[in-house]
């Protein structure tokens, strides 16, 4: 189900923990699987459980507890905007509104062409760089004024 490269990356993560504690690698393994497949289907969760020797429910619990795991398909570019208070004082809500208008979608929706989905996030620990937009969970864009959002969107294929 996963490529050899993804499995290799999971094996590297497993090396960080004691032999008897493979379960510790579950968060990385789910992250690696999601990066390859775009989201976590129940089959993917079962596969990760099998690979780590865990009960599927133990892995499902983790996938549903942490909010950066996507349990449904999302846009090719998943855009998450922090609107918590410190960010809101420096334009976080404006950035989200601008993206809604620009992409003509609401929070949780995917554009018709499947390229973008828009999400409201909780504190990302980067309030000094507000407004902050997280792209595909792993790439944080800082100081996202409308102009900066325009140039960010122009860079995506």
């Amino acid at each position, binding site marked *: 189900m996963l490529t050899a490269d993804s499995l290799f990356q999971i094996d590297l993560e497993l090396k960080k923990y004691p032999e008897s504690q493979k379960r510790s690698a579950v968060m990385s393994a789910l992250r690696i699987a999601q990066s390859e497949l775009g989201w976590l289907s129940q089959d993917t969760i079962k596969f990760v459980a099998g690979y780590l020797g865990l009960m599927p429910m133990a892995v499902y619990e983790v996938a549903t507890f*942490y909010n950066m795991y996507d349990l449904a398909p999302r846009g090719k570019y998943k855009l998450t905007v922090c609107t918590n208070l410190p960010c809101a*004082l420096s334009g976080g809500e404006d950035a989200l509104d601008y993206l809604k208008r620009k992409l003509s979608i609401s929070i949780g929706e995917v554009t018709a062409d499947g390229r973008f989905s828009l999400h409201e996030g*909780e504190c990302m620990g980067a309030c000094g760089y507000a407004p902050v937009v997280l792209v595909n969970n792993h*790439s*944080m864009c800082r*100081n996202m004024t409308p102009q900066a959002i325009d140039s960010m969107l122009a860079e995506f294929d």
Partner: protein
Amino acid sequence: MTVYTKGVVFDGVDFDDPDCWKLDRYVKRGGYAALRKIIEGSISQDSVIAEVKLSALRGRGGAGFPTGLKWSFMPRQFPGQKYLVCNTDEGEPGTFKDKDIIELNPHALIEGMIIAGYAMGISVGYNYIHGEIFQDYRRFEAALQEARDAGLLGENILGSGFSFQLYAHHGYGAYICGEETALLESLEGKKGQPRFKPPFPASFGLYGKPTTINNTETFASVPFIIREGGQKFLELGKPNNGGTKLFSISGHVSRPGNYEVPMGMPFAELLALAGGMRDGGKLKAVIPGGSSAPVLPAQIMMDVTMDYDSISKAGSMLGSGAVIVMDESVCMVKALRRLSYFYYEESCGQCTPCREGTGWLYRIVDRIERGEGSLGDLDLLESLGKNIAGRTICALGDAAVMPVQGMLKHFRDEFLFHIENKRCLVH
């Protein structure tokens, strides 16, 4: 964003240098000298802990517990594996200092953890990093590899016979994992739901083994303390409030950012350092220690100094040092509504008073904000607070209640205005 330092955690860092995080730059500014001093001088474990105690370093994650004392709780002669854990799961709204430490000076943290491992006789450590700052997780992994390649980390460090392995572990979006026992559960690959204490992590921690957990900034202060001496660190701050502290300043200031300044700096001076109020606004209120800390109005804030004792006397807490600055354009009902939503969203769901109570708090503040509240709602909020705080396994319940109590204490009139006039006084 600005990063400013009077030295300790960011001692000597050239923030304009894109490679300032690298090992060679760190060594050039005195990095790993503390580790060498301990190993080459065969300084005893007790002496290292004594130096940290002398410095009066207090935990920088929010609780302010004396670090040297915490280290002395670790059973030294325990026969099995012990663990050292760093908490870089920084998700308290307003806090963004640990992010900059691992982005700009990761080796200070690595060196601090190696020294802590040495002092407590621990051979394995993990750094748990907030999921949303994944680029910094990668950066930290690169710094670890540099340290391993240079023989500073791993087996037989600098030929001393002391070995210490350190690994990075990432979260994936759960504020609760900043709570130390939730973090341990998460590190074990489970849902991040806090454990009952006692037993404390020093006796039953990661995988049930003795574990010491400290915040990123705490560990990153250790190399300076060992290199320059605990006394020098102490003298940078105030008695019982040693050293410098990183303040993350966000909101309505001209230059938001991280400011590493001596403990006990007057707030007015800190505000001036951050460029003063943005666009000439007038200061209305400040949340001085992250979103969980009760808000303080401008007139109280302008008289406090930035240390644990002064802020606590003023009725709030220094917490993690996250200073959220608000000018007069802010509606306090709306501000509280957003914070209450956060705690509702992030409650782990384990304890009923928090799981249900945070939802009640949010819905009531929300209806007041929409002009649909009634006078009884303010009493209801107070009574809910009493039924949540102190009745849960971890402090998230208290953290959800404190902002509500602070707002009702200092800005009750704004809430009353919303209820009586069904509109906002500010907007």
